[in-house]
């Protein structure tokens, strides 16, 4: 195990703990993306470029986007269509 792998494994542990210790959902999404990026680098260093590509695109682009959209959707709160409570986007 060389220095590069040691550093990357340590970074994986750090960013992974970061995801678990972050409390705000929006920051947690970013922490997860950072973890995905480090994982992609680790896979690349372990000579698994196919998996690294998948991790990079899914873990740092697709998944965070979906989470951010869900958080935005929750904040817009458009659910009460029949109950007609005042949502923040209603006049």
């Amino acid at each position: 195990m060389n220095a590069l792998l040691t550093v990357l494994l340590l970074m994986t542990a750090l960013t992974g703990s970061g995801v678990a210790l972050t409390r705000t959902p929006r920051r947690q999404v970013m922490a997860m993306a950072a973890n995905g990026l480090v994982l992609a680098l680790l896979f690349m260093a372990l000579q698994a470029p196919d998996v690294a590509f998948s991790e990079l695109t899914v873990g740092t682009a697709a998944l965070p986007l979906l989470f951010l959209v869900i958080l935005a959707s929750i904040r817009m709160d458009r659910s009460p269509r029949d109950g007609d409570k005042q949502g923040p986007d209603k006049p």
Partner: protein
Amino acid sequence: MTPRLRLIIFLLACIGLMPAFAHVAMRMPSFGAHPLPYGETINAVATKERHVTNMVSAVNFDYRGFDTLGEEFMLLCAVTGITVLLRGTRGEQTSARPGVLEGRPIRPRSEAVMLICRIFGTLTLMFGIYVALHAMTTPGGGFQGGVIIASATLMIFMGETYRGWRRLMHSEILDAIEGGGATLYALCGFASMVAGKPFLYNILPLGTPRDLFSGGLMLIENAGVACAVAGGFAVTFLEFLEETRAEKEDPE
């Protein structure tokens, strides 16, 4: 249960499990050593047998091509499920008007952002096509290329705002690309059967190794996967981002 009690139980469980953990950890193969013969065998025979240099593609599309068919339809089912669930509560109508939160106005993108997104969106798209096309020779393949192509469409969203992005993305076309890709993969299998060979048997000429068009039937299967994944992810992005649009129809 108080947090303190929970912590005590956790520590007790740790101490209890420690011998078992130590026993397994001491007997693990050393870092980088893998005792499994399958990978070595594939590395040794795949180039001769299938004329491809990317062993992962050889396994995905040929040796275990049937598994990939299952994964293909798993993705299709997942995307269909997302679409049905989200449209079920939201309704079928679409709109290019983004939703606005109070105190969070949507400012027009600056020219610098637009320029960067246009340049990098195009580059990302080209890179995705490159990764998908070179599945047989270099790392990557239909899945990876497809996801990169789909994330290139997100650069349009970032550069041109929701409105511009929504006008470019048409659900019907993306659905057709996704379903067509999955169908193409299944049809490859039936084509082998029509030729009198087992399902997904590689019936096409294999070509020369290290050539872009080596691998025979794998090339068509790979194209099917690339279309299905690019379409599937783009549909997912579209359905999720539709959740943030304004509730009413576009007035125009």
